[in-house]
């Protein structure tokens, strides 16, 4: 059973993000992490491998820095990793990204594709389904349970107020929802293996893609503007003895803010 896992390196949830002067670029503090939902996907792939043998391949599209996400995958137990790295891939939308990923996946036979249900940086949740579309495969979104047997997979998906059980023919693509599993923490030996691992790379040319098909030129969606979230008013600290400060706090809540 060969499982491909698509992962994305995202800004660390604690990284500072500022909107650039042009309104469409982002100035992101250089702190990164693997997308949380992708960790569920890797964990599930490793569990499938443990049960059915085969191999787990992790793929990401990104800059050199994104190798860290691939190394995390190997540290957890993945067998192979591929970095899709090309100037031409940069600034693409979900469509362009899904096209590149689907070409990379199709290079070798596979049975299952797993990825997170969404990346927690832009929250669009579109790349997984689009990859399935490009490859002409069934797509099951937001799975909570996955059982594989005899070329078929049975998955549980959350629906409003309950769960739905679906069955698909393999190969198929599944996106992982929180609750699918508890991702393992990499072992020291795993991290050492990951640090030594050779990471394969592929460019647009390797995947038979013209530059016009990838990145910004190949995109269907264009970012027009980013707007910052509404600023929270500054915290007000009330000085003085606890009792007096509490009385003042109540006065503000009742007379000034009128929330009581």
């Amino acid at each position, binding site marked *: 059973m060969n499982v491909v896992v698509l992962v994305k390196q995202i800004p660390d949830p604690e990284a500072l993000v500022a909107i650039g002067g042009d309104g469409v670029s982002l100035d992101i503090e250089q702190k990164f992490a693997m997308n949380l939902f992708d960790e569920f996907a890797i964990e599930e792939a490793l569990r499938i491998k443990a049960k059915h043998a085969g191999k787990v391949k992790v793929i990401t599209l990104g800059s050199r820095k994104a190798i860290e996400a691939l190394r995390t995958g190997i540290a957890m137990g993945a067998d192979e990793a591929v970095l899709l790295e090309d100037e031409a891939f940069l600034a693409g939308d979900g469509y362009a990204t899904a096209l590149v990923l689907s070409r990379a996946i199709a290079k070798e036979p596979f049975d299952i594709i797993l990825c997170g249900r969404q990346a927690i940086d832009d929250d669009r949740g579109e790349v997984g389904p689009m990859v399935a579309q490009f490859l002409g495969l069934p797509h099951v979104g937001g799975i909570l349970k996955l059982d594989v047997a005899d070329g078929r997979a049975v998955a549980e998906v959350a629906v409003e107020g309950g769960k739905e059980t679906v069955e698909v023919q393999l190969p198929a693509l599944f996106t992982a929802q929180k609750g699918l599993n508890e991702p393992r*923490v990499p*072992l*020291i030996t795993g*991290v*050492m293996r990951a640090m030594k691992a050779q990471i394969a790379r592929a460019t647009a040319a390797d995947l038979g893609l013209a530059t016009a098909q990838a990145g910004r030129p190949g995109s269907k969606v264009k970012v027009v503007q980013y707007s910052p979230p509404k600023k929270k008013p500054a915290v007000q600290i009330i000085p003085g003895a606890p009792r007096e400060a509490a009385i003042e706090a109540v006065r503000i809540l009742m007379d000034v803010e009128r929330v009581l």
Partner: protein
Amino acid sequence: MDKVDAIIVGGGLAGLTAAYHLATAGRQVILLERGDAPGSKNVTGGRIYVDPIKDYLPGIIAEAPFERHVVKEIITVLDDDASVQLEYANDRWRSEPYMSYTVLRATFDGWLAEKVSEKGAFVIPKKKVDDLLWEEDRVVGIKAGDEEIGAHIVIAADGALSFMAEKAGLRKPLEPRNYAVAIKEIYRLDEKTIDDRFGLQPGEGTANLFVGAITRGMFGGGFLYTNRDTLSLGIVVGIGDLIQQKDPVAASLLMEEFAARPEVQRWIRGGELKEYAAHIISEAGAGGIPKLYTGGMLVAGDAAGFSLNLGLTVRGMEFAVASGAIAAGVADEALAKGDLSAAFLSRYEQKLKESFVLSDMETFRHARDVLENKRLFTVYPKFLSELLAALFTIGKGKKEPLYTSAKAAVRKYILNWEGCKDLFSVRKM
């Protein structure tokens, strides 16, 4: 069990330096760090002196990401509502080679960790080492979670609270009197504003020390270091004194009061608070040094109690770098000989004695006895403040001759049995 050459516990200066040297010598090294990254759990003030360490980090120290080179020292002695400030500037410090730099350890340690990785060592963060593995009376590896990793030698560089030294039975149980708590805040401030406010040229920095009423008579003091575009402000208070207070005040409150003092506000005003951190510091001096080795294991840096408070200077980083390098040298020799016995590793202590690490610790063995004198934090700041108040105050009535006022202050605070004892005790330093 398969064994790597060396496992280093802790990614601070001692651990990273040890890893750097062992990896350079071609040894297989794993460094395990508990925090998200080397330096992430560090609360150093801080300032680092270059001369003592440059030979222990040869070649690379010139590219180190320091903040500002220190060109002046400011000492502020505080009474409850008055203060005296002394500024010492030295033109020699304004030209290279610079004597000392302010440093942000998250940046510095991150840089050093990269250098270590380039040499081929495995620097693995987010790994807490839980225990040591033993074969008879020798350490042969570590346990982290469910994982056991064998090693010919373990270097414990896991900081002031070193659990490794404790697990190995090398350290006595902790005594509150031997430790101080340090609280540090980092304020962001424009680079140019820092230059102007402290009277500095670009790239220059100051080290500021505060002593007196801010610790309410307890052992300790405050510090303020200028970084490139931040200020590190902090307070250090003896834990022994903190827990013996009649009217207990939390250290965090002392920090708040300290930051609110006008003598501090003048420097930090307008700064945006970016970080708040706390840690413990060993204050025991030579008396707090554990046994430094056992079969298959060496202890370095803060874990070995290598920190020295001389009041005006507080040193730990230089000792960490030097002891890390010396530990690596001895470990490499031991690996080459295939002799990891305690008997062979005892040369680590010998080499530390030959270096400034144990000789400085020994020279200033009694510094703590002098600095622990409460009068340093109460009587003397008050004396200074009242003396100057007497000299400067002009009121309605007749002014006493200056000499009479000064004499009265001196009599009240200094010229007594306690004062003589203090003068006598300073000889110990």
